[in-house]
């Protein structure tokens, strides 16, 4: 079989299985196993457990369940709700204040968790009914929560960047440093957008009335219970950026610290810990098993010459390197609408990584760009995680169409953010240069 035929039949049959609802892990895994058996003989299939065992016992990957666990503990401990309450009191008085507060709370939360589910669900339960009650524009209300919650996967500690760093063999500390400013840039874009819309047309997002606002002293008091968690985050991220601790160690201590803090503050009972563990198990399965399956698929594809084929196709086309970069971004946006981010990283990074280095782009810069791009995948229908999460908890009067329309404007902002990061590479590279000179 020629490599063209293999490419078409492999990706075609995988897509077919995916469309029929077979989980990504098993779709990729089956196609990988069947093609290996057909092209290299049934004995070659015995490589499968070796590959899975390699991933299972990977030290870096252990940071994924640890960060997820930390997020689950903080969520059970009601930290997201506390942060929202605090920011809400401080900024609720602005026009569009509740939406702004939602984005800010999500951004702060994103610095503590590496996934999107926790913020998305909690904010959908607390902030969305609040905004509807205050007659906020539905699209601003849903969009701010969708976009804000998605920051969780970009702003460090990010689970996405751990997977990326593992697959691409690049430093997770540098990727984390690189993702910091783009995350803040996106949060800033969302807030500016909300404010402009609401100042032009105050009906879209009325400020909370003066009589409902708390006095300054009470507002300051609201900040105190959040201090321990804040310090914990600085410790976790600081030690990773300064290269003192490996991400896995920082994640482990972060998880331990989160249990201690929420336990001492009396917000976490044994039952909460058990639930947090079970949610961690489910979320880790989603990430790890998808990695297992996709690894079998892509490892075979590269072994039969798929990597060289894709490189030849893109680099050999003689196009300008920026055009090639744009083609890659468009491929990622397209895939993001259909496949989840783990699958995309596992399938695309082994193919794109060598090309990026060949074209002379900075791998760290591209890695963060990749993550900024994949953020959009959470909001692009038909397969957008954030849309499902919010729909799952939203009040009945919010329809799926409302959520999709709300996502549209913020999707545009994410695209603007992506373009800015491409045009001004310093947005990504400034912080890594600061921490990792030379």
């Amino acid at each position: 079989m020629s490599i063209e035929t293999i490419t078409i039949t492999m990706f075609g049959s995988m897509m077919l299985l995916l469309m029929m609802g077979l989980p990504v892990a098993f779709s990729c895994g089956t196609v990988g196993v069947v093609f290996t058996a057909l092209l290299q003989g049934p004995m070659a299939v015995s490589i499968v457990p070796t590959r899975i065992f390699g991933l299972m016992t990977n030290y870096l990957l252990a940071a994924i369940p640890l960060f997820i666990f930390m997020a689950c503990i903080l969520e059970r401990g009601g930290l997201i709700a506390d942060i929202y309450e605090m920011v809400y009191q401080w900024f609720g008085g602005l026009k569009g204040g509740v939406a702004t507060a939602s984005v800010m709370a999500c951004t702060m939360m994103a610095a503590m968790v590496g996934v999107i589910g926790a913020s998305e669900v909690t904010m959908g339960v607390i902030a969305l009914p609040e905004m509807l009650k205050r007659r906020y524009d539905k699209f601003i209300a849903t969009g701010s929560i969708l976009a804000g919650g998605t920051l969780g996967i970009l702003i460090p500690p990010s689970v996405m960047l751990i997977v990326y760093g593992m697959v691409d063999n690049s430093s997770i500390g540098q990727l984390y440093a690189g993702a910091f400013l783009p995350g803040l840039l996106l949060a800033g874009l969302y807030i500016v957008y909300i404010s402009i819309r609401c100042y032009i047309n105050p009906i879209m997002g009325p400020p909370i009335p003066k009589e409902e606002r708390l006095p300054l002293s009470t507002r300051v008091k609201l900040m105190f219970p959040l201090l321990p968690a804040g310090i914990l985050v600085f410790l976790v991220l600081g030690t990773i950026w300064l290269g003192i601790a490996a991400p896995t160690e920082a994640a482990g201590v972060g998880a331990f610290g989160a249990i201690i803090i929420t336990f001492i503050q009396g917000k976490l009972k044994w039952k909460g810990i058990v639930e947090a563990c079970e949610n961690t198990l489910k979320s880790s399965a989603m990430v790890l098993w998808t990695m297992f399956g996709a690894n079998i698929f892509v490892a075979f594809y590269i072994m039969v010459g798929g990597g060289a084929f894709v490189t030849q196709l893109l680099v050999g086309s003689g196009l300008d390197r920026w055009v090639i970069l744009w083609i890659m971004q468009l491929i990622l946006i397209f895939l993001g609408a259909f496949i989840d981010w783990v699958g995309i990283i596992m399938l695309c990074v082994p193919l794109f990584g060598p090309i990026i280095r060949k074209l002379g782009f900075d791998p760290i810069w591209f890695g963060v760009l990749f993550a900024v791009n994949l953020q959009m995948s959470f909001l692009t229908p038909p397969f957008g995680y954030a849309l499902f999460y919010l729909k799952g908890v939203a009040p009945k009067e919010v329809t799926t169409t409302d959520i999709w329309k709300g996502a549209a404007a913020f999707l545009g902002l994410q695209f603007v953010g992506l373009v800015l990061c491409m045009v001004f590479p310093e947005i990504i590279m400034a912080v890594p240069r600061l921490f990792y000179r030379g």
Partner: protein
Amino acid sequence: MFLSGRGEVPLPFFVIGICFWAQTYAEGAWGTAHRSWDMKALRTFMMAVDKTNIFIGKLMVGVTLLAVTVITFEVAMRYLLKAPTNWGHEFMTLLFAIFYVAAGGYAHYYRAHVRVDVFYATRSQRTRAILDLITSVPFFLFSIVLFYTSWQFYWSSQTMEAGAQVLGIPIPGERSFTDWGPAYYPIKFMMPFGALMLILQGIVWFIRDVHMVATGRKLS
């Protein structure tokens, strides 16, 4: 390849087993000769698989907390007391290896494995059950291959002569090459075990889907 070598469970037993349950069930659901003991046995089997996977999930609470404690202990020893252990990192990594494998069947019980919901999610329950029945062919293909290959993988690890001794008696089994040198075969045993739990959970979903297609109702 699946029938050669030692220490294997013969594949035909699995296939026959699956067919037997499916056939037994079909008789119970559609057949004129409805035999209640068939249904009872089937329900017991389904309950047993569901409960086992839930129980494994509960066990993982302990594994998670242990792993978090171990890594924190290691960090404290390394950075505060300057006396790193030679087992902390590896122990935690191996605990998570067990964790991931156990998560497979557990997540399948909750149908939590990531799907692409473009076409699938908008169908009726019955159509989804039909799609599931069709895709169960590749699912079982993958999980059974996973079971067999990882069983071989485990068995070669179990029978490897690594020179380990207990009280002067040589004991077989692969060991890690690190300073600490823990036995690898219990971890590798978890792989066929995890694949087996995945297969069993897949069979339970298969039965539920058959019931849905046949009757249009959920099986309680």
